[in-house]
């Protein structure tokens, strides 16, 4: 894919604050029309990266292209108001002195009424046109913020932790609405989140960011099934990482000796998702149950292996037979993924 097919392309972005690199070699390609999640732990530089893309901050080095146009880097600098990059702020930043209509119309040139009316309808804000921001509920404020950012028809829309301000119940609901609106307008979007469930469930592409750089990009299934390294694996879903020594085509671990014909000799980590472990009560079994978390539809059972390593097992449905101290036998389902150490 050449840079012109991409709505957004970042290369080698760097930004440091007081000598500490917040963004360090950040590369990101977002195809036109994609809904991309930028997933990372807090403090990994996600928000800084968004601000560099929006032009709210200048990179120390690296480049940003928006629809093939260089907007930052290589001596070029396009101020935020001329980038056609929209942004939904974490706290929404609705202008408190303007009503809903005026907030949405803020960035529209010329007669804004038709554009505003269609966005009011899209964001289901009918009847609230002349409310002030403080007179709206959290979900409504979120939709106004989204409509305001979409109004100038940006080439790329950035959303900074857009759901963190909502309580858990509302969050699931608003997520769906936001995805519908973004899909309906076909806007290329990048949203930042630290919540893997959020990233996997709404995005069609996920970029995992750790320590200021993107470690892996792919569709949600690929990221979950084949994480590039242990850091990514831990960030995306629950992961048991079991240390293993490979020799002669076998991985020797505390879960047994597994055939790994393609691996070179050495040490590695085996990625074992909790749902890929079978558990059975066995008085002679080597493992012991050390913790049970019951969620209703499933439960998470943590077992200690003789080696001292812990393995989490997910079981669907209630299974009261596993209690603290039970002796159990564990078996792997399918082939675990070996991750370089």
């Amino acid at each position, binding site marked *: 894919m050449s840079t012109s097919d991409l709505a957004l392309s970042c290369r080698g972005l760097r930004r440091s604050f007081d000598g500490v690199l917040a963004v360090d070699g950040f590369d990101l390609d977002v195809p036109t029309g994609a809904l991309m999640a930028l997933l990372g732990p807090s403090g990994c530089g996600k928000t800084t990266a968004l601000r560099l893309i929006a032009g709210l901050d200048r990179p120390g080095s690296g480049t940003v292209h928006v629809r093939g146009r260089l907007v930052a880097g290589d001596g070029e600098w396009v*101020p*935020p108001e001329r*980038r056609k990059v929209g*942004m939904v*702020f974490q*706290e929404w*930043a609705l*202008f408190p002195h303007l009503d809903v209509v005026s907030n949405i119309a803020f*960035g529209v040139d010329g007669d804004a009424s038709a554009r505003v009316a269609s966005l009011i309808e899209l964001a289901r804000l009918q009847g609230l046109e002349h409310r*002030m921001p403080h007179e709206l509920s959290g979900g409504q404020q979120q939709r106004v913020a989204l409509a305001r950012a979409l109004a100038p028809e940006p080439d790329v829309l950035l959303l900074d932790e857009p759901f963190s301000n909502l309580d858990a119940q509302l969050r699931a609901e608003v997520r769906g609405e936001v995805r519908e609106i973004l899909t309906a307008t076909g806007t290329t979007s990048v949203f930042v989140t630290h919540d893997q469930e959020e990233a996997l469930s709404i995005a069609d592409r996920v970029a995992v960011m750790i320590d200021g750089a993107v470690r892996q990009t792919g569709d949600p299934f690929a990221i979950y099934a084949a994480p590039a390294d242990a850091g990514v694996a831990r960030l995306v879903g629950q992961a048991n990482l079991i240390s293993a020594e490979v020799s002669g085509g076998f991985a020797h671990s505390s879960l047994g000796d597994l055939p790994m014909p393609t691996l070179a000799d050495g040490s590695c980590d085996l990625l074992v998702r909790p749902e890929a472990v079978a558990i059975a009560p066995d008085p002679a079994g080597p493992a012991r149950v050390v913790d049970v978390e019951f969620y209703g539809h499933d439960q998470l059972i943590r077992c200690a292996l003789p080696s001292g390593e812990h393995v989490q097992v997910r079981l669907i449905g209630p299974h009261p037979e596993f209690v603290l101290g039970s002796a159990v036998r564990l078996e792997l389902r399918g082939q675990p993924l070996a991750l370089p150490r």
Partner: protein
Amino acid sequence: MARAATITVEQGRGRKAPIPLQASALGVTALVLLPIVYLVARALEADASSWRLIMRWRTVSLTLHTIGLAVAVTLAATAIGVALAWLAVRSDMPGRRVWATLFALPLVIPSYVGAFTLLSALGPTGELQRLLEPLGVERLPDITGFPGAFLALTLFTYPYVYLVTVAGIRGLDPAFEEAGRVAGRSRARVFRTVTLPLLRPSIGAGALLVALYTLHDFGAVSLMRYPTFTQAIFLQYKAAFDRTPAAILSLMLAALALVVVVAERRARGRARYYRSGTGVARPLRPVPLGRWRWPALVLSGGVIGLGLVLPGGMLLMLLSRGLAAGTPLNLTIWAAGASALVSGAGAICALVVAAPIAVLGARYPSRRSRSVESLSYMGYALPGLVVALAFVFLASSYMPLLYQTLPLLVIAYVVMFLPQTSEPLRAGLLQLTPRMEEAARTLGRGRGRILKDIVFPLIAKPALAGAALVFLTAMKELPATLLLRPTGFETLSTRVWTSASAGLYSRAAVPALLLMLLSSVPLAVLARRVGVDPEGVRQD
């Protein structure tokens, strides 16, 4: 304050205030309303001859002069205050930390001190004239009248707008400006359509202070011989035996001041102002001035030159001249003691008297407690001269024991400056939610311990700031002190006034310098509270 107000609603709605609290709050309100009630009663018994004195062309011209000066000063001071605040907080002007402090300093110069230093420098026989005489300049344009009054009041009142605007800009969430930029709007347009409207309440509050100060001002307009209400009222009071015309003129001036207050309230609009987020505030990135730095430096230099360097320099020059001529200093020392005594008494009394009003407003919000609060602002809106005149009349007719005594002067200070203590106290009490006290109760603390460990530590700072503000204002206060002081009792402000109004500028310099020195200490406390220091911690 908007945030504080929302807490109020949740706090003790429907609870009845204890009777002693209600009674003392009502008593305070009655005291504050006393002057205006008396003046109305006095005006109502005016006879035809008094009215004939009032119904003259002169009264219309006084009104126009007063309004004209107030409008001009308010516009100029607001423009300067906002511009300097933006330069000090948001621009990359060279040396902006130093400028940020300098810009607030003209506040320590009372307008009458500023006025006489301007006169001694730029006046008809002033220093500038003397410097230019060898060059053949025979006569400089006369600054007395409107130009002098305008210059003096603008230079020494713009810091009110500056200080509140600085606090306003610092309190502004940068996300609003950023949201404006990514919506495709230029920096200038974002400033006009987002920043300025958000700052409007702060700027409005500062402009209100300037307008009231100008309407209230007696010293500067008198020295500049610019005929406004205060000057006319003073002359009427001095000259005539019948005091009714002075009372009527006072009422007219009071009405003007109240109109200004109401107009500012109306102009606030319905938007509610709040920080967008609760997250850590990002430091604002200074805006590069580019070639605009030169006009910015010229403006800053001009304002500081005229408002700080010139008065300061003139005072030092006059001081050395006075010392050389053997002006005795001991009278000034006594006057300084007298100033500190009455101002300190005023500050303490204003704090004590403010307590019931503040507790009622913060803890028992209701329609009635809101009107008690609004009424307690009455004395603040009234010109000092008007309050003083009412107390002179009242005391001489009904309270001869109080007439020309220090307690009466202190009472007048309390009436005039009450909101300066009640407002910070109320804000402090609002931060102290009843939940905190309830939490302390559940942790096994009795009422006494709660007062000592929680309430007092938390309201000590706002209380101290409020008292410092009253002290500062009372030190500089002129007309009420002049009218209500006991015979022979001289404060620094009255000493400055008697010498300066007689044209003895070098004799006025010593008490003026000492006055500024003593009143700049509370100013430092105040400046810390609103966060003038550009690198200082954000005030919250």
